[in-house]
């Protein structure tokens, strides 16, 4: 009944100053990437658990475009009151060096850095090489012949290719796709030969034998594909660059009151521990992080400095990380 009276009062336009505790209305969640993508799936499957803790609805909507910058800017324009959340991936940390925008996660507070993807190198099943050293040897014998899938500068394939180039320069043809889904489709159709992808997207075709896994691009192997070696097993020189991977996180605008951030952090912290969610994340080949507070910030800073410098050294980045106070790792 009390609710009803309050509701009636509001309907009559007698809205009082906010007295109720946060959250007293629906929260808006902006997903940086399109419906059906990894960021979208992860955001939509963790949120119902957090809603249960918060006791409010989080209305998710996809605001896409500009490698996620359109969504980030929209979240940045909203008030710092915790009623607008950003569900994003790693890309904003590269906006400054790639010349894509002035804003990045420095303008936000991390609520939860949920999980990290593991890069994997996959090839066509009939590719004339099975291991990473064999692949490098083949590429060197046939310069420019091998077609690598890519998802545009700054995407996972470009970073992984830059890392490979950093250790052993290779001459390949990069064919751009708009996302790793279409690129993996093209790989299975024979339009490209090799693709650095995220494990989750490549897992099923690899298990079915439609794709051949060359190496897990990480410092250790994964249990989903026990037979595939980690790159550091064959080429230990990569150890100083790894582990590296794209990640997903939830962010609120900087300046959001501490108690609101604490409440959101608690809700999403609990949500990411949910058993159903964990098993889905494992099935999709993600490594759970669930980092919050200072830990999350440290992770973001480290990731940014490492990746920005790799891209700058590979001459993919337009601007020097130094210009933005990003120090060399």
């Amino acid at each position, binding site marked *: 009944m009390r609710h009803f009276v309050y509701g009636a009062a509001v309907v009559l336009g007698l809205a009082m100053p906010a007295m109720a505790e946060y959250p007293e209305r629906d929260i808006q969640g902006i997903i940086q990437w*399109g*419906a*059906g*993508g990894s960021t*979208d*799936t992860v955001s*939509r*499957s963790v*949120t*119902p658990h957090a809603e249960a803790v918060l006791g409010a609805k989080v209305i*998710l*909507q*996809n*605001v*896409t*475009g*500009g*490698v996620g*910058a*359109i969504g980030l*800017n*929209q979240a940045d324009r909203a008030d710092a009151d915790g009623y607008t959340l950003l569900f994003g991936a790693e890309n904003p940390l590269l906006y400054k060096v*790639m010349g*894509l*925008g002035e804003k990045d996660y420095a303008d936000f507070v991390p609520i939860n850095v949920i999980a990290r993807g593991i890069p994997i190198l996959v090839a066509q099943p009939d590719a004339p090489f099975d291991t990473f050293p064999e692949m490098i040897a083949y590429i060197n014998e046939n310069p*420019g012949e091998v*077609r690598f899938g890519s*998802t*545009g*500068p*700054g995407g996972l394939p470009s970073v992984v290719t830059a890392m490979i180039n950093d250790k052993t320069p290779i001459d390949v*043809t*990069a*064919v*751009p*796709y*708009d996302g790793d*889904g*279409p690129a*993996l*489709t*093209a790989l*299975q*159709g*024979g*339009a*490209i030969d090799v693709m650095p992808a995220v494990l989750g997207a490549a*897992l*099923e*075709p690899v*298990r*079915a*034998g*439609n794709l051949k896994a060359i190496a897990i691009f990480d410092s250790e192997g994964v249990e989903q594909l026990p037979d595939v070696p980690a790159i550091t097993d064959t080429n230990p020189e990569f150890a100083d660059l790894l582990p590296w991977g794209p990640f997903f996180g939830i962010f609120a605008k900087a300046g959001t009151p501490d108690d609101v951030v604490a409440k959101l952090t608690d809700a999403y912290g609990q949500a990411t521990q949910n058993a*159903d969610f964990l*098993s*889905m994340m494992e*099935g*999709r080949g993600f490594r759970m992080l669930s980092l919050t507070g200072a830990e999350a910030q440290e992770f973001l800073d480290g990731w940014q400095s490492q990746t920005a410098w790799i891209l700058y050294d590979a001459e993919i980045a337009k601007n020097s990380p130094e210009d933005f106070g990003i120090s060399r790792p």
Partner: protein
Amino acid sequence: MDILSNLLIPIVNLDLLMLIAVGTFAGIYVGAIPGLSVTMAVSILISFTFSWEVYPALALMIGIYMGGVYGGSRTAILLNIPGAPSAIATALDGFPMAQHGRAGEAIGIVTVVSFIGGFIGIFALGAFAPLLSDFAIGFQPRDFMLLAIMGILLVGSLSGDSLVKGIFAGALGIGVGAVGMDPLTIQDRFVFGISELRGGISFVAVMIGLFGVSEALIQLHSIHTPAVRQKITGIIPSWSKVRKHLPLGLQTSTIGTIVGALPGTGGDIAALMAYDHAKRVTRNPETPFGKGAIEGLVAPETANNAAVGGAFIPMLTLGIPGDAVTAIMIGALFIHGLNPGPMLMIEQPDMFWFIVSSLALANVFMLIFGLTGIRLFVRIVELPRTVLLPVIMVLSIVGAYAVNNSLTDVYWMLGFGVLGYFMRLYGYPLAPIILGVILSRLLDDNWRRAIISEREDFGAMMMGIFTSRCRCACSWRW
């Protein structure tokens, strides 16, 4: 026997049956309202059905998908605002029919042929899925490019009186589609330093502006002419009429299934290609195309509904989405603990047959819900324009805003509405613009992929086209 029992799951479980029915019903309205899309509705359902079992969740989504693809034709016929991009071609002949008092007849035939198209797509899914997915996945960038070029050639049949104006409009559409940050190179194109333009111009905003707003502005000229009385007889098409158009419908359903099965192309392109095919093969339509030809309704509506079954083909056989909606459904399967991929059909064949039979049921519900209530719907057109036009404008604005929650899209909608208004007055056809926008990325991206794959060797790429799958598949049309 297993197949049969799996096929029977949604039929013998009353709750699943109900969910499919509810989904289909809701889908028709989602499809009909510009700005609400099936993609949006299915995304929302992911969170909504989170705690459900996988069968009920899928049943609801499948219903919405099937109903939504069909629903787009409603507003296209009644108001000349396609509810979804796949209904654009339907507006070309459907709206002229409504203006001659034949809206009921148009909706009736559209409903029946949508059912036929949907059924053929589902049949192809059930019978030839592995075969078709092998074909679809082998499509190379140059094949997609060729497909896009074939699509662009449709400008010829969409141009009306002036071909040169049609070509201009088509080129403008391709340019509009290229606006924003190019995802392949992150290079800005036609952005002019405006950060809102980085994300591109929302296609739906362009569509609502060109069709809905400019039409409303044109109608202001004759605001006080009374609305056309709609005939309410002959709504359910006679068998002889259906049979007359069945051969065409079968051909365009095939086009729809194949284009739907290709990853990255869906019902919108399928419908336009089918429309062109109809124009080519129909020698003597009773009414000319663009003025209310039944063939102009049969072709796109069979094709876009056939594309639904088609889109599930690569999804269920390989875990590769055939379009945006199946991409979300793959996410839904993951959330429900399944691993959609090439192994799904081997490890969980029940899922495949469950989806086939749910689609078939949704298709039947679509026919039932589609044919009932038409009389009520056509009354909308009989409302006085002085009331109807402002309401259409509000719906257009809300629709343009809702796509991406962006006010910029509303301005684009208005801008294209005014541009479209003048273009109409001065004899420019508008459909080629939409065609250009739809095909822009397909053409541009695949052109670049094809030429990069051959290391900038134009000759080698042209040679490749002679052995191309797309050319082989499509040569029967010429």
